[in-house]
């Protein structure tokens, strides 16, 4: 069954077209990777899917609903969770609190979405705290610990440390844990292994594979092609805002246009020379 359908979506910034009519389909439980040189428009595409940015043209359909232009908080409520390219943790919050924020949409207290009444009831529930509220809080803490435990000993000893004291790689892990805490239907990972060494990258690969095996649908932006080729059901290659190839990893790997985009041979496919990417 199709979970996400991106239908000729475009985004222009002034004179620059960052994303130029991209189509993309993600099946339930599938993993599609988006690769391409820096500046190809991958993150802009993610931003539009998760609601941080809105397309100038085209549609985004999640689960049969047209969700184009919906704000990110509503899309989070629909089960879209993401991580950010440069890492966005809440610096002064502890690791545990960072992860707990991920459960925001599932809290009893936030469930009432009526404009003014919702705010009042949320405030009242926080102050009065009927038994269900602390019970849920305790359960969520357990769940958050369990999610953090998936990263082994990397984060567990640091549950009460503020996120600003963490290493770069650990901040990425916190972000992923926070995204998982949302119990997402669709997970968007934007360069999850950036700044990680080989061992750490291998751990991340294992984690993503486990997530995929548990049935989670994943969109992945990644420069480490090894990882992409091992994990992906399909790979989409973007260059200069356009899709230049799509298909199973093995096919894409040998596509002349892709090689041109990565290695910068201007003779093939008319692509402009781009520096090769780390892989």
């Amino acid at each position, binding site marked *: 069954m199709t979970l996400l359908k991106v239908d000729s979506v475009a985004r222009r*910034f*002034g004179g620059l077209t960052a994303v130029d009519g991209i189509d993309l389909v993600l099946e339930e439980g599938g993993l599609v990777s988006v690769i391409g040189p820096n500046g190809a428009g991958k993150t802009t595409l993610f931003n539009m899917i*998760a*609601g*941080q940015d809105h397309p100038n043209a085209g549609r985004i359909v999640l689960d049969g609903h047209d969700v184009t232009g919906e*704000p*990110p*908080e509503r899309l*989070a*409520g629909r089960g879209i*969770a*993401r991580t*950010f390219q*440069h*890492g*966005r*943790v*809440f*610096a*002064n*919050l502890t690791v545990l*609190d960072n992860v*707990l*924020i*991920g459960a*925001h*949409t599932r*809290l009893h*207290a*936030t469930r009432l979405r009526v404009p003014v009444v*919702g*705010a*009042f009831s*949320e*405030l009242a529930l*926080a*102050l009065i*705290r009927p038994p269900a*509220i602390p019970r849920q*809080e305790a359960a969520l803490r357990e769940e958050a610990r369990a999610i953090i435990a998936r990263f082994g000993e990397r984060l567990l000893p640091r549950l009460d440390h*503020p*996120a*600003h004291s963490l290493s770069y790689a650990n901040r990425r892990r916190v972000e992923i844990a*926070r995204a998982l805490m*949302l119990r997402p239907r669709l997970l968007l990972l934007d360069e999850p292994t950036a700044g990680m060494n080989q061992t750490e990258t291998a751990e991340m690969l294992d984690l993503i594979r486990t997530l995929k095996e548990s049935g989670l649908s994943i969109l992945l932006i990644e420069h480490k092609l090894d990882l992409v080729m091992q994990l992906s059901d399909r790979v989409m290659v973007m260059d200069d805002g356009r899709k230049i190839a799509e298909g199973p990893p093995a096919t894409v790997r040998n596509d002349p246009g892709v090689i041109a985009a990565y290695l910068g041979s201007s003779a093939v496919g008319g692509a402009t020379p781009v520096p090769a990417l780390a892989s």
Partner: protein
Amino acid sequence: MNLSALASWQDHTINGLIIGNIYALLAVGLALIFGVSHLINFAHGSVYLVGAYLGWACATYLHTPLPVTILIVVIGCGALGMLIERVGLRPLAGSARIAPLLATIGISFVLDQLVQLSAGADPRAVPNDLPDWRISVGNGTIGPLDLLIAAIGLASAAALFAFLRYTKLGWAVRATAQDRDAALQMGVDANRVNATVFAIASALGGVSGLLVGMYYNHIDPGMSFQATLKGVVAQVIGGMGNIPGAVAGSLLLGLIESWGVALFGSSYRNLFAFVLLLAILVLRPEGLFARRRSVPPEPLTGTFIAPSRPLRIPRIAVTAGVALLALLPLAFPAPYLLQTLTSSWLYALLALSLTLIAGTTGQVSLGHAGLLAIGAYASALLALDAGWPVALSILTAGFITAALGTGLALPAFRLRGHYVSIATLGMGEIVGLVILNWESLTRGPIGVSGIPPLEFMGFPLDDVKPTYWVTLGLMVALALLQSRLLGSHLGRTLRAVREDDVAARASGIGLGRAKSIAFLFGGFVAGISGAVTAHLYSYINFETFTSQISVLALTMVILGGMGNVIGAILGAVVLVGLPELFRATAEYRVLIYGIVLLLLIRFRPQGLLGTV
């Protein structure tokens, strides 16, 4: 509506353009500074004040001719500008983004008070030796001072243009404004650029002050803050950091004010400015003349508030402290001590409100005095005009403040960072101006007198000790409630909004809802503080709760540690108590506040107890 006044619309137009020209000298300086350092210089009005008084002193005591006076003002204020850059900006490179803004507020307190201490609080007349003739233009007239102001405006604009266009340093300024990092990389000396920009901006600001003094033949120490506000409004209209926009925005502001005053009367003058400010911030935050809507830059995470580890105070110590404070009146019944502490508890309520909104939620409000005013007027009028019991009036005033405060802050919910501070500052001013002008409800400039004293179910509570206990009790109760809120999921949610609103939204947090909850609770607490104050003072007017109080509350919050409940109370006790300890007069008190704010930002930005 005074339609006959429109007959002389040409006079009002000329007047508006002249005033606009003066605003332009201010706004261009602010725009230059914002361009290179992304800082709203709240000390700009103080430089303008210094310029006015420097000119006045020269003309009065040294009898300098006007060109010499102007030259002295240019040099004096230019030097002052460089000093501000050296003290307020340079040492704070790399600290939280709010730090330099607060530093300039501290500097403005210090400068304003120094002027007031050396020249006195009374208004002064600025002598001017210009000839006394006027030319008729249509229905209006133009005098030599008008021409001089226009000429100085045009000449400075031309000189500035030439400087930015044709000199190497001017290029460096423009390069720094466009891309600071790239400019640094190319060997531009950022400190030199900043110092130059502050010198030019301050020289223009000082001349503006002198001209205003001559134009109205009146200067007083209170003109500083209004000037900063007008300059900021003009700049927001034109687009922050946009120099031609600042000139156009200033002229537009001058015209709108002048026409508005002609139609509605002079007490509405500032209302136009601030309503315009809010309208622009809500509808076109990038300014009227921005070439295109630019995408907001991706902020770094958690840079607005300095990272720190809060100091944990054991519960037993807090309980013991509260018990000691409750028993204090029995052990030391000195009225002076108890009154000072009562005042501290009322300020602590304000600081609690602000530490939730600015500290926990990251919406640095500079208009909190407006919330006090709403609470005070609501309770006073309910008790006086509706005959409600005092206790019920106070409680209801809390709810009214929560509702009105949240409603007023609503336009600021879409804004970020410094823009929130500007918008809330405007809202605080608007509250005062509405109180001043809505005579049928608020009694206008006369104020409300004969407000009934504190009582509960017929028991009078207006003696020193009962008042102390009531205020302490209210403060402790609301502090506990706020701690409970912070300990729930809401505390986490609000802090997430402060740390990174993009990531918070991606996790499903609706910013509008989170911010309204902060303002609802904070508005209630501030409203209670204002209401109790009204019943203690028995007389309030539109000037009882000035924006100085807003800044004082912010200083308390920073002193205690942003978002820190016990810190806010500690900050209030220290800042209310400290000046009492030295028996300082009002002027020295503000001077102390300014210096404390400056020292804190420089040496302990996380406050005494740390950010929570």
